[in-house]
């Protein structure tokens, strides 16, 4: 494991070096938001504020072309039309620098679904295997943070290839995975062993600053037990306005839609983020909707994260506690309190 030190002034040159070989994605301030964008020399990345969006799109773009198609006519018989399909995959090497530990850990949630022993989402895999994460630890939890509730920590390395710990004059960089090591080969990085201690102190402090986490081990069972309790979900969802801010900013929400768009004889099949809070998400062609109200939909969102997913995937909660859904919710719906309410709710009688 390599430990290096990156001086403040060398951040941009180092990123510029990375950008020569990788699609380099960094958090940037745009208007009043901090978003992930390709690195450009003219603009310094924003590493101190928590990014408004998650780095999800680096691997799972909001709109991804799964394949393109083209119709061609038979020369002899123009009534006969042939179809040509082309897969679209992006395998270019990429690195995300400056996302938080929890953000990078979010992809572990994806991996369990997108790359199983039965199927592999090839578009996802192509980017996932070729994208590295340089995460930055959180020195102090925000009022919306709860990574330690769901098995994470401000210094977590479960999704990182390299971890950055901020010091006064720069950052200590440690490689976490083998794939991360080459990122630290730059001559702009100095040996960081002498600063490792300072960094460890900061990390320790960061962990200590986290408020105590409640025990969520009961959550999967409790949430599922409330499935038929419509009053509970109606009360919890009353203020929800059914928008997609929570799901689209979430590092672990992985649902999508597939639609075709065409122009003339050619077109594309697109895979786009979709949002389980939307009425149209489960709307069937007949007009029937199995999740007709926002209570049904919020139940599915919370249920999926804290119950269904952990039930299928060895108890792993599909939430990393980044708190974006709370912070950016237009009406401040707080998923933490919903889960706590569910745990505290009196047990239902058998249905």
């Amino acid at each position: 494991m390599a430990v290096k030190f990156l001086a403040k002034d060398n951040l941009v040159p180092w990123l510029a070096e990375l950008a020569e070989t990788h699609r380099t994605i960094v958090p940037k301030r745009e208007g009043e938001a901090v978003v992930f964008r390709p690195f450009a020399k003219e603009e310094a990345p924003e590493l101190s504020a928590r990014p408004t969006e998650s780095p999800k799109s680096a691997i799972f773009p909001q709109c991804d072309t799964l394949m393109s198609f083209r119709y061609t006519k038979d020369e002899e018989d123009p009534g006969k039309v042939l179809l040509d399909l082309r897969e679209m995959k992006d395998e270019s090497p990429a690195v995300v620098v400056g996302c938080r530990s929890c953000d990078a850990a979010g992809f572990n949630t994806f991996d369990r679904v997108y790359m199983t022993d039965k199927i592999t989402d090839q578009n996802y895999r192509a980017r996932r295997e070729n994208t590295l994460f340089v995460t930055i630890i959180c020195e102090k939890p925000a009022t919306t943070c709860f990574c330690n509730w769901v098995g994470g920590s401000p210094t977590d390395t479960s999704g990182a290839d390299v971890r950055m710990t901020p010091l006064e004059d720069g950052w200590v960089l440690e490689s976490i995975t083998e794939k991360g090591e080459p990122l630290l080969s730059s001559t702009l990085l100095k040996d960081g062993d002498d600063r490792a201690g300072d960094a460890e102190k900061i990390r320790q402090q960061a962990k200590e600053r986290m408020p105590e986490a409640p025990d969520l081990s009961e959550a999967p069972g409790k949430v599922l037990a409330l499935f038929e309790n419509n009053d509970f979900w109606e009360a919890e969802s009353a203020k929800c306005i059914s928008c997609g801010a929570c799901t689209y900013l979430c590092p672990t929400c992985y649902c999508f839609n597939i639609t075709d768009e065409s122009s003339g004889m050619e077109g594309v099949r697109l895979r786009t983020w979709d949002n389980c809070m939307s009425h149209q998400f489960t709307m069937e062609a007949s007009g029937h909707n199995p999740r007709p109200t926002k209570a049904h939909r919020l139940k599915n969102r919370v249920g999926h994260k804290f119950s269904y997913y952990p039930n299928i995937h060895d108890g792993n909660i599909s939430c990393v506690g980044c708190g974006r859904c709370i912070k950016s919710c237009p009406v401040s719906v707080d998923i933490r309190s919903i889960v706590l309410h569910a745990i505290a709710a009196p047990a239902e009688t058998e249905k």
Partner: protein
Amino acid sequence: MLQNTQTAKDANPYLPSIGTIVEIIEETPNIKTFRVVLNSEGDMKNFTFHPGQVGQLSVFGTGESTFVINSPPTRMDYLQFSVMKAGEVTAMLHTLSVGDQIGVRAPLGNWFPYEELKGKDIVFIGGGIGMAPLRTLLLYMLDNRADYGKITLLYGARSPEDMAFKYELPDWLERDDMETTLTIDAEAPGWEHSVGLIPNVLQEMNPSSENCMAITCGPPIMIKFTLQALAKLGFKDDQILTTLEKRMKCGVGICGRCNIGTKYVCVDGPVFTYAQLKELPNEL
């Protein structure tokens, strides 16, 4: 159990095979049946599936929609799908003609436990387009007739013209190795078979539940009352099989649309016993 190329680990699960429509049958005013052959001879030859599995048909430029493969695996000249006009994709499918190319992503999902059903009596109860998934299993059983006990079919539709598979009905009626009852909701001129709602006709038929499996598919309201009728006839929850229709997109358990709690209809279904359904949260 997921043995074909579509679901193998390094295949693109979203990439359809291209097939050609070789025949179109106008079943009813709003149902058309499409017979499709995959363009790649190898793919067609290696294509295996089980009765009850579904496929996604693509009209490129419009989208994909899910249909049960309603030809049996014992008859592999083509794959057959029956399409009722409902949304955008089905409407577009209805405009296609023989020779047109479509995408086929199949087989997907689970299937009727035809191995376990061996030796049992079978009652098929189909309503409207719900006959399609039953047809594949019925034909499979007829092709392996010796393996199964008494086969009874009750098929109902709103009116004579809404009956699909008209061309096969005479054969099913005539065969002496199965018993076929057809019914429509209300009297119609020229109709020589039963008249009445499926659950009522089923009660009159009074099939024995002894060593018997009931397999039913149809519109929700019919299913509801058919389940009640079956219970009255002594069928236990695990003696009833049905297959669900649900909005699916990816078909491989990812996209998050078709789950009922922890179960994804596209991979854990669409075939469930009534006992299994009762275990699921109520979100159909």
